[in-house]
């Protein structure tokens, strides 16, 4: 930890300022008491959100997904907060750990700028369509719309959990095979220095057209549910487009940040992204994102993966139950 602080002085500064800021906020709290939350209750909620967000960011970065995959389902399953507010805040959570990791990944040559810009357009377009669809659904279907979102998200989580279980099939250096004319024309190839092997690895991405279509879908899902799309970006890049795992994982964070930056504006300008709730989550993602990126090399990623799988299954059960309860008007005693 001390080594980390020495190597990244801006991280030390940010952590130090955050500690001072939260101390000052707690000690000199001038807020009024409100209907549900007292002034101290509001402070505690903000402080807990910040700490939880930092923890989620560390886990999410180590597991190779955006924090939105944990934040959005947990909040949708276990709180009464409006789904639109949760999804907009989920995009912030998904986005900011990706933003801060863009710099180190680009400087180390792990994120391929050509792949990023090729995949960015379908992700951005899909993400915007998804966020428009989310707001339209909330406006037109009300409670039933919320139920549909919870049910669909529960099913998607089961799918993501299975993706993580079979994640062992991912290959660090995939077989390229036949390169289509379009893929050859796009020329998405490059090289990076693989520290674990102590040598340079060359790669070429293929099935570029199919990958583009899948990224449109990934973007839509991320924008609609406020999940981000890190969980799907890595499999598409690695398994479909035969990009090495490390390049896929680094590209995922960069793409997530870029794609969500377009999707999030409608939420901001229509007042669905509320600063009082989103700010501590955003700060936690920035600090936890930097820490997670540097801790990654020292921990057993598999342990984190098991925690993530358990969390996804657990949350999906609650989400599906809540969705069915509202849609069918029944009571399902789950937790």
């Amino acid at each position, binding site marked *: 930890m001390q080594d980390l602080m020495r190597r990244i002085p801006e991280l030390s500064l940010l952590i130090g300022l955050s500690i001072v800021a939260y101390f000052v906020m707690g000690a000199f709290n001038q807020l009024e008491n409100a209907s549900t939350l007292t002034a101290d209750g509001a402070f505690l909620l903000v402080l807990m959100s910040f700490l939880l967000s930092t923890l989620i960011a560390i886990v999410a970065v180590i597991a190779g997904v955006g924090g939105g995959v944990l934040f959005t389902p947990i909040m949708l399953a276990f709180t009464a*907060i409006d789904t639109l507010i949760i999804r907009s805040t989920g995009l912030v959570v998904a986005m900011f750990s990706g933003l801060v990791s863009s710099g180190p990944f680009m400087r180390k*040559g792990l994120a391929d700028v050509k792949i990023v*810009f090729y995949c960015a357009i379908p992700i951005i377009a899909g993400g915007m369509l998804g966020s428009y669809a989310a707001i339209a659904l909330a406006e037109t279907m009300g409670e039933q719309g919320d139920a549909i979102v919870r049910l669909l998200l529960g099913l998607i989580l089961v799918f993501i959990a299975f993706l993580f279980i079979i994640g062992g099939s991912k290959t660090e250096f995939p077989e390229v095979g036949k390169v289509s004319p379009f893929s050859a024309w796009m020329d998405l190839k490059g090289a990076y220095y693989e520290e674990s092997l102590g040598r340079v690895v060359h790669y070429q991405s293929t099935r570029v057209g199919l990958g583009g279509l899948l990224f449109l879908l990934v973007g839509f899902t991320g924008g609609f549910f406020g999940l981000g799309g890190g969980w799907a970006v890595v499999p598409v890049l690695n398994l479909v487009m035969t990009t090495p795992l490390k390049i896929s994982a680094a590209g995922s964070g960069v793409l997530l940040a870029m794609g969500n930056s377009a999707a999030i504006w409608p939420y901001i300008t229509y007042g669905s992204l509320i600063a009082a709730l989103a700010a501590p989550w955003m700060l936690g993602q920035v600090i936890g994102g930097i820490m997670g990126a540097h801790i990654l090399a020292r921990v057993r990623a598999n342990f984190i993966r098991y925690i993530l799988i358990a969390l996804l299954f657990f949350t999906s059960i609650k989400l599906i139950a809540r969705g069915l309860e509202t849609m069918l008007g029944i009571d399902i005693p789950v937790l």
Partner: protein
Amino acid sequence: MSEPHHNQEKHPEIPLSGVVYGDIIYWGTLLSALIVLAGQVMSFITRANHISPSVILSRIWEGDKVGAIWEGTVGTQPAGEHWYFDVLHTGDGLTQLGISVGVFVVIPAILASAWIMFTREKRPLFGTLATVAALITLASFIGMLEMPAG
């Protein structure tokens, strides 16, 4: 197969367009985090707020819809504009600005990267893709793309 060609090969050159993109994003994000931190402190230790955090967090926690929250506090829900520019003297306005700076910083980063691709690296295809990505994001930022409902 993605195989190493030569064990003694030198480290590959890292494209300047990527480094510039990453650096603008990284420092822009840290700047936005500092603004958010300052806005949060101002929200809590002064009464200068557009909507008091304890009031809005209470309503959020109670499960109020977005429209009800805005109508029950300041009267009207924003209708697709950057409303926080009008309340930058308040803690929550400043906090919202900080988050927006972090989201916005992607646009200049992509444009700077595209410029380098066009001029130094002579990769017009990817420069064009980057420009298109920046323009879509910019259109979303300035609200050129109308909402289907709201």
